């Protein structure tokens, strides 16, 4: 399937692309557009104003996708807290990792194009997922 989002990918869009590839559509292809009008007819838009898979009721798009596709995995919801704070910074969650992740993504977007950002952040989010998965199993910070 084709998925479309705004050019100039930052934390929420990078995390959503990862989530879509890992949990919704393994063959996902991503298109980056400047304007909602440029979204191809066969693509599902996300993290754009006025579309279903976007910010809603104070949620960021990552949270919206988790809800929309009934992804109840608590590790994903833990990642959602970090993505939410890195993206919206509204202090809804206590996520000290957010500030660092935000800077990493901002820096990446200065030296990589959108395709490269998704390529680099794939293993990054895989790693974060594994870290929090082990943490939940252990009930403490994993080594």
């Amino acid at each position, binding site marked *: 399937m084709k998925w479309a989002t705004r050019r*100039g990918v*930052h934390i929420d869009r990078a995390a959503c692309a990862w989530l879509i590839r890992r949990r919704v559509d393994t063959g996902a292809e991503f298109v980056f557009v400047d304007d909602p009008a440029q979204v191809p007819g066969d693509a599902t838009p996300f993290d754009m*104003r*006025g579309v279903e898979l*976007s*910010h*809603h*009721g*104070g949620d960021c798009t990552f949270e919206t996708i988790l809800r929309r596709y009934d992804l109840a995995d608590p590790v994903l919801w833990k990642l959602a807290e970090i993505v939410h704070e890195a993206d*919206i*910074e*509204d202090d809804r969650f206590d996520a000290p990792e957010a*500030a660092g992740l935000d800077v990493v993504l901002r820096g990446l977007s200065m030296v990589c194009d959108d395709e490269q950002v998704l390529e680099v952040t794939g293993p990054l989010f895989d790693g974060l997922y594994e870290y929090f998965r082990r943490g939940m199993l252990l009930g403490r910070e994993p080594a």
Partner: protein
Amino acid sequence: MSGTAGQWVLLAYRIPRQPSTPRITIWRKLDRLGVARLGDGLVALPADARTREQLEWIAEEIGEAGGSSTLWLAAAASLSQEQDVAEEMRRARAVEYRAVVEQARAAADGRPGERARTVKRLQAELRKIGRRDFFPPAERETARLAVQALNALIEEGAS
């Protein structure tokens, strides 16, 4: 600031008075972003990719709350007008930095046990103010030094 007025992103909005909860939530979000209030239902931030996106999301939320809004990219017609707006934003941040300085000094005079927690809190507060500080006032450095001094006091006590 350079000789020409910069790009700003403006959000013109209207939100129903009732229910008041979404209205207050949106107000708080705008405050957290450090917007300049240009008038009733009109706020502004210096335009960059981040500020524009943040105001776009708030615009979306205003729509969901039953309100309406438009987002604009604009430049002040004269440099002095822009400087007035910037000065107002600078003063608003200065007030926040001064509050940090006062709390840091009060903690230095207070119980040693409380200091470590206060340092952490004030460091986080400084980061937050920094995110919405587009025209840094002199108080920024004063606040940074005050928190640093408090931290040094803790390390002295520990050694």
